[in-house]
């Protein structure tokens, strides 16, 4: 039996009231409810306040470079598909520095879950604009206002991701359920998480989000299987902001197409140098 105490990690160093606390709580709850033991989990994070999350729970941890949690996640998942691989990023990490990896991991549909703590600002480096800052957002690096933000949900859908969800750090029950569905989904699952930053983003606050977010599952007739509808829903931002599963489709999974994995995880396969012998004849 897996309990929350199995996931008790180091003491977080985040600011009091940080949205990251809600995300950490939701993740731990999801892992416990799925009865996944910590040694089966691999958390791969990048750099930023979000990148510290793996240290504050328990599991295998590869805290990688800025923008890069996705590529090592892919390498590790292929080496051992038995691992539950969860990549963790902030908005700068995922949609700025790591933008190319994000697009292509979605396209190839690797069987990993990607949690993006999207607070629309750079926290660790103290308050600069991020790729998702609202247009006009004034910071020290954007004194004339940030330019158009990237739309991560729409970008994930058009890039080919097979599970695209949006959560809110202020509703950890809902977020936890979303993370559970993301982990159990086979294929690349993005969960973009609206995360208030109490220190550097005084616009997109808890109350700002609470006034706007609504749950898609409460909307009658919304079908996350419908790509066209999902793309339309992905455009909705302002007075009303949808959270929940925006798009979900069963698509071929990258790892399932690798013949080498049919005999089990690569990491459990023995090395036999003598096997190379049979390659010599064709070079003669």
């Amino acid at each position, binding site marked *: 039996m897996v309990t929350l105490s199995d996931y008790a990690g180091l003491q977080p160093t985040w600011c009091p009231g940080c949205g990251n606390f809600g995300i950490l709580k939701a993740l731990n709850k999801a892992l416990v409810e799925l009865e996944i033991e910590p040694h089966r989990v691999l958390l791969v994070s990048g750099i930023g306040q979000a990148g510290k999350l793996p240290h504050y729970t328990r599991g295998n941890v*590869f805290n990688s470079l800025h923008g*890069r949690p996705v*590529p*090592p996640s892919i*390498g590790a998942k292929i080496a051992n598909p038995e691992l539950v691989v969860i990549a963790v990023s902030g908005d700068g990490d995922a949609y700025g520095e790591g933008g190319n990896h994000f*697009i292509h991991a979605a396209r190839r549909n690797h069987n990993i879950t990607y949690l993006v703590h999207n607070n629309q600002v750079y926290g660790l480096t103290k308050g600069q604009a991020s790729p998702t800052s609202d247009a006009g957002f004034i910071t020290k690096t954007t004194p004339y206002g940030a330019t158009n933000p990237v739309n991560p949900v729409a970008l994930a859908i058009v890039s080919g991701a097979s599970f695209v969800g949006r959560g809110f750090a202020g509703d950890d029950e809902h977020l936890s359920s979303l993370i559970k569905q993301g982990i159990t989904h086979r294929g690349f699952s993005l969960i973009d998480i609206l995360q208030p930053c109490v220190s550097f983003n005084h616009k997109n606050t808890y109350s700002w989000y609470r006034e706007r977010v609504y749950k898609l599952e409460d909307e009658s007739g919304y079908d996350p299987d419908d790509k066209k509808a999902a793309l339309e829903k992905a455009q909705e931002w302002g007075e009303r902001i949808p959270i929940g599963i925006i798009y979900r489709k069963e698509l071929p999974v990258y790892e399932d197409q690798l013949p080498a994995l049919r005999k089990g995880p690569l990491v459990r396969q023995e090395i036999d140098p003598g*096997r190379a012998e049979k390659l010599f004849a064709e070079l003669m």
Partner: protein
Amino acid sequence: MPVDFNFMVGGEAGQGVQSVGFLLAKVFARGGYHVFADQDYESRVRGGHNFFRVRVSDGRVGAIAEDLDILIALNRDSIELHQVELAHGGVVIFDGENIKDTGDNASLFSVPLERLARERAGDRVMNNTVALGAALALVDYDLEILNNLLAEYFGKGKIAENNIEAARAGYEYAQAERKGSIRRLRPVSNIKRMLLTGNEAISLGAIAAGCKFMSAYPMTPASSIMEYIAAKSEDFDLVMVHAEDEIAAVNMAIGAGYAGVRAMTATSGSGFCLMVEGIGLAGITETPVVIINAQRPGPAVGLPTRTEQGDLQFVIHAHHGDFPRAVLAPATIEGAFWVTVKAFNWAEKYQLPVIILTDHYLASSYATVAPFDLAQVTIDHGPLFSVKDDEPSEYMRHRITPSGISLRAFPELSKALVVTDCDEHDEEGHLTEDAGERTAQVQKRLRKMFSLRQDVSQPQLYGSKKANTTLIGWGSTYGAIHEAVDMLRRDGASINLLHLDELWPFPAEIVADVLSTAHNSYVIENNATGQLARLIKAETGRDVSGKILKFDGRPFTPAYVAEAVRKEGC
């Protein structure tokens, strides 16, 4: 009389220069000859001027020669550019019905290549195979070997049959029109050797060493490693991921290495530039990874299809901060196999990035090599966590040890949690800013260099232990310098060669020792500034007395090296 016979096939991209050159090399390898072949081509799919040189010998050869015995000229440029390279008695095979006004020259032997291809094989495109047949007739070689090869190369069916007929047409025409062979090259033995490129040797080395994961982004001259590994992935239970860029490639390989499989990536200089962040990531997380940099002339895109050794200083220093790494530079195609095996062992044993530095010349040249003795391939994973001996709850990925080497555990294989961080971390792997822990981890990582240093082999010293002149080379130039030493010794020079294929950690003691006894010492490098000379100075405090440098994108030949050494004085 020893055999040392040289062919060149020249033509435009798209005329089959590579195919004919390869078949020529293979047909002599099958006859028991030693073969060395190199390729010179432009960065384009059609047109331009390309050539493929094939050297055939009854003794081992590791370089290309400059004098041509037979030039197969598939276009006019090939005649105009390479006629001057003909040895005494050399012959140019060309199509005089298409290439007119070539002048009157006894070396020119016109064969109606296109007409024979059309008449006998039904398609003028097989004119190159006609030329191949004609070339074999001029040396009285066994056409049956070529026929068998064509059947394998083109598969059973009409295309193979037509090519066999085209080769026969060329062979018969040359026999009839050019009486007597210029040199008789009959098959010499049934000894079976492989004919393979440096990239194929590396790929075989990786497979033999148990590489299970490769991620890479295509870049000349490294791409054929990706292609080879991908082609063998099903039979050998390995995975090759064509990544979105080199940054992803190196980071994926590191992720796979962390999860416990042997992993590599391959690129060339400007792709390596993008991978530099991964060197430090592997360094601080102590993750094994093998990175192949097949050099080409830089900076930036440079000369995409040419050769250079311009990345030595770069790969030794690439990334910020102090941490250990290893750099290996195979000297021969055969050596590329063994160096690759060693790279995988070192990466795991010392838990660090290992860079294999080759270049276009080594990557794309062919040589005959005896099948590798796989019983000699050892697999050394270094110290591993074991559930029998170790308590999972006490496992610490970066535990401080006297050797600096900590046990490796792999996620999910036991209850031990494997935690690591590209931030400075404590022994458990959690990020820390503690001054003491920082100092301890830096020292721990650097301590690995002590034992790694003991593992570095002595560089090869060819020739007498003491000589008046010592040539110093590294990597792919071995064949050319080695042969130049033979030439100069025949002239009476007191000369030897110190050749390095393990460059970092630098074998300073032996290099200093050899330099202290030589009157003249010259580095020979395919770069513009003498990067090895600078490394020698930095590591031994000694200056070399001269530098023989070539940075036109073309490889050294033995004759070029010998002449340059004579000019410097020996």
